[in-house]
């Protein structure tokens, strides 16, 4: 069946020997070529493999470290995310300090000089270094305006250094614009601390700026709360490792992120300060210091119930944005750092002890002589008088030293010192501000004979303004002293508000004693015929005012004795006395201009008047009854 099989090539080739074989040989000839090809290509492949193997071993074993190091250098980039510093806000959420992202423009003049020289060599059409820097300087000036004078930029660009900082605190948007035009200008991440209120409350907040000498680099506080609470405010920087392309650190290869540590922003600090009150108090104290010719002055407003500091102002303050130019006096927050001898304001200790221990009552009549001899000294009153009859209220109201010492002697030194301790003198209030002083109270075993003739009238011991106001806060708060606080809450990075724990109150005197002393001290601000107190200017019509004037003699360093001319003029008062809301403490250092040099009562009046308006304090139900000073 040859015909049937003819359609099948291989079978037919075996069965039909003729014409089929000829053409079938042709491929075989090719197969022969192929074999040669195979041998050749096999040799080539093996040779290539061996070559590759040698290269592989060379690269992987002998040069491995060098290459991987170079690769790492080329692509692995550690990127840092700066943590945003927490802001500082006042009790109403008003901004006191916050951070804004900025850029610092820099250049590498030496590198630029080389680059431009090379470029002009290749193509003379390119800018020379001089032309280039000129263009850059004028463009920077055009974008940034007056804050970057063209000549200054030009001088910096042409300086012979390898790195020069051109401009700090540049708006990132403008920095981007400049970099787009001139990629040779670098822009480093920076943050600027902004104090929208300027000098206001700078004595409390302090100042912070971008620090390169601190690790990690970033905004760090140098003064005030910014320094004191730096750990809390700063947060923690984050970082990640990425691979970048072509040596450009900005070109991140997608998906190459690793070792990611998220940045943790700093906590916000909420203060007890009321910015508006702080502004007014600061303005008033500055005015009064200027009027009275005092060396300096400070004032504090405390919440009568909670001890929160509503305002803490000194006459001298500084601009936190330029604190480098501030003098040490300006930076010093004297209200907490500098203790002073308060004078008669401290008579409240004797008054509280006398009432508490039942030694005297407000209407107890004392026969007050013109002078009081104690040890080697003789204490007199501020005005000359013979022996007069005075109620204890009168002793306080007229601020009689002799009368006070008479009561103090009856109280006794130990009970007096006990009361001094309860009022928080001689130890820090822990208000939450740096550099706080504890003041000086001579310990009982170091007393000289005349010490007990000094302490009850506010001499021979020192206290800060905050301690002084704290004593009156105890009287205002029915005998419980709550140590003052200036940080109200911290707001964590998660947005959760953590109230600062309220300090535990210290029971100083009984509520009855506190009320009695408060009522007695209304005599100070009253003005009635024959019953005028020592600080009638402090009175605020419509409100009962309770307070105490003070004049503390300063120590003259030349003779190491009490000066006859330089006094600390103080005032501490409670508004309103019948339902205390605020305690105000004022201190003026050595005022000289009459009539303001003798008393701080008018300043108290101004502050109290503003407080009454701002916090809409209801008028006292009844006006202060006339306090009987002399029987």
């Amino acid at each position, binding site marked *: 069946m040859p015909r049937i099989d003819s359609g099948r090539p291989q079978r037919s080739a075996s069965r039909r020997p003729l014409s089929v074989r000829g053409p079938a040989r042709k491929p075989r000839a090719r197969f022969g070529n192929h074999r040669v090809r195979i041998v050749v290509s096999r040799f080539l492949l093996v040779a290539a493999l061996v070559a590759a193997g040698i290269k592989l071993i060379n690269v992987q074993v002998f040069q491995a470290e060098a290459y991987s190091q170079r690769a790492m250098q080329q692509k692995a980039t550690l990127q840092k995310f700066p943590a945003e510093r927490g802001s500082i806000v006042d009790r109403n959420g008003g901004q006191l300090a916050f951070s804004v992202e900025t850029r610092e423009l820099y250049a590498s003049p030496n590198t630029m000089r080389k680059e431009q020289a090379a470029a002009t060599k290749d193509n003379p059409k390119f800018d020379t270094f001089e032309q280039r820097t000129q263009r850059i300087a004028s463009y920077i000036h055009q974008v940034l305006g007056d804050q970057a004078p063209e000549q200054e930029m030009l001088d910096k660009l042409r300086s012979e250094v390898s790195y020069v900082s051109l401009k700090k605190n540049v708006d990132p948007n403008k920095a981007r614009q400049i970099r787009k035009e001139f990629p040779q200008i670098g822009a480093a991440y920076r943050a600027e601390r*902004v104090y*929208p209120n300027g000098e206001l409350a700078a004595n409390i907040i302090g100042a912070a700026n971008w620090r390169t000498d601190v690790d990690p680099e970033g905004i760090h506080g140098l003064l005030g709360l910014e320094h004191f609470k730096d750990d809390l405010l700063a947060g923690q920087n984050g970082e990640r490792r990425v691979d970048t392309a072509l040596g450009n650190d900005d070109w991140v290869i997608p998906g190459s992120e690793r070792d990611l540590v998220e940045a943790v922003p700093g906590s916000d600090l909420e203060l007890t300060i009321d910015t508006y009150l702080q502004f007014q108090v600061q303005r008033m104290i500055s005015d009064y210091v200027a009027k009275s010719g005092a060396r300096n002055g400070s004032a504090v407003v405390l919440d009568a119930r909670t001890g929160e500091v509503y305002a803490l102002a000194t006459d001298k303050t500084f601009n936190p944005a330029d604190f480098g130019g501030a003098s040490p006096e300006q930076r010093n927050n004297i209200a907490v750092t500098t203790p002073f001898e308060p004078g008669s304001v401290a008579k409240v200790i004797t008054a509280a002890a006398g009432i508490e221990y039942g030694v005297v009552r407000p209407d107890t009549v004392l026969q007050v002589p013109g002078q009081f001899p104690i040890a080697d000294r003789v204490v007199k009153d501020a005005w000359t008088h013979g022996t007069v009859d005075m109620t204890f209220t009168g002793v306080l109201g007229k601020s009689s030293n002799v009368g006070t010492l008479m009561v103090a002697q009856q109280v006794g030194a130990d009970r007096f010192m006990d009361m001094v301790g309860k009022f928080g003198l001689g130890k820090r209030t822990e208000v939450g501000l740096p550099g706080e002083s504890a003041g000086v109270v001579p310990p009982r075993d170091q007393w000289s004979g005349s010490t007990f003739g000094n302490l009850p009238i506010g001499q021979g011991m020192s206290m800060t303004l905050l301690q002084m106001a704290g004593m009156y806060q105890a009287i205002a708060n029915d005998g419980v002293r709550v140590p003052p606080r200036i940080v109200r809450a911290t707001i964590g990075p998660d947005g959760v508000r953590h109230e600062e724990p309220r300090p535990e109150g210290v029971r100083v005197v009984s509520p009855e004693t506190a009320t009695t002393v408060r009522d007695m001290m209304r005599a100070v601000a009253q003005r009635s015929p024959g019953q005028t107190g020592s600080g009638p200017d402090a009175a605020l019509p419509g409100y009962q005012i309770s307070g105490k004037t003070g004049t503390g003699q300063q120590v003259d360093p030349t003779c190491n004795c009490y000066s006859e001319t330089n006094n600390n003029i103080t005032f501490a008062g409670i508004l309103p006395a019948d339902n205390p809301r605020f305690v105000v403490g004022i201190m003026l250092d050595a005022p000289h201009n009459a009539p303001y040099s003798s008393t701080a009562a008018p300043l108290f009046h101004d502050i109290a008047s503003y407080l009454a308006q701002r916090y809409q304090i209801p008028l006292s139900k009844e006006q202060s009854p006339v306090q009987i000073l002399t029987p």
Partner: protein
Amino acid sequence: MSAPARWNGPYLPNQTSSTSTRKGTGTRRTGTGGRSAGTSAGRTGGGRGAAHTPARTSTPARTGTATRTRTRSSGERPVRTTADRGRSTSTGRSSAANRAYARRDQRAARTGGAARQRTGVVSKARFVVVVMGLLVVGLVATLWLSTQSVADSLRLQETREHNSELSEQVERLRSEVGRMESPTELAKLAERLGLVPPPDPARLQVAPDGSVTEYGTPTPATAPQPSAPPADQQQQQQQQQSGGG
């Protein structure tokens, strides 16, 4: 298409190799006619050749043709012989008739086989096309996805930049609000508008019986010192504008 034409030569003994393709197609037509009429082996041979030709011409790969023929021949041979024997013994036809029948059967089987082969070729071609299609689709998809990914990462970068620009703007505005809100600034602005801090106010207390008691003496606010002429104010404003810009 010279290669398949050359290849046809050895398998078509009754025809010259040069005309095989043309003739083959021609005889297929006649072959179909011949099949129904039961014509000679010469024609059927031609038909057979024709039946192979399109299959061979349609597949350029030599090895493909070879395997195809091999499988076909191994499958067909036993069919043919049993048919031959069975028919010759049971019906008692002449051997020529038997052969004719056998040829018919074979033809039928072959045409069926050719159809099978054709479908095999088609399915393989389809498979190849499908694979190529998949490759192309895959390539296109890869290209598209990588383009998309690059575009996305670009967009992401742009969006990030935009985002940071916006947050910068927020910061800028916030600092501006902070500055304008500050009492220091407000006091300055108020002063510029001619406002003055009020002196001591008087306070009124309304008793339950409706009587009003006045505390304090109200005093009129004193006008700001005339030492600040408008020119100075203008200057200040200009300074402020340039500074605030």
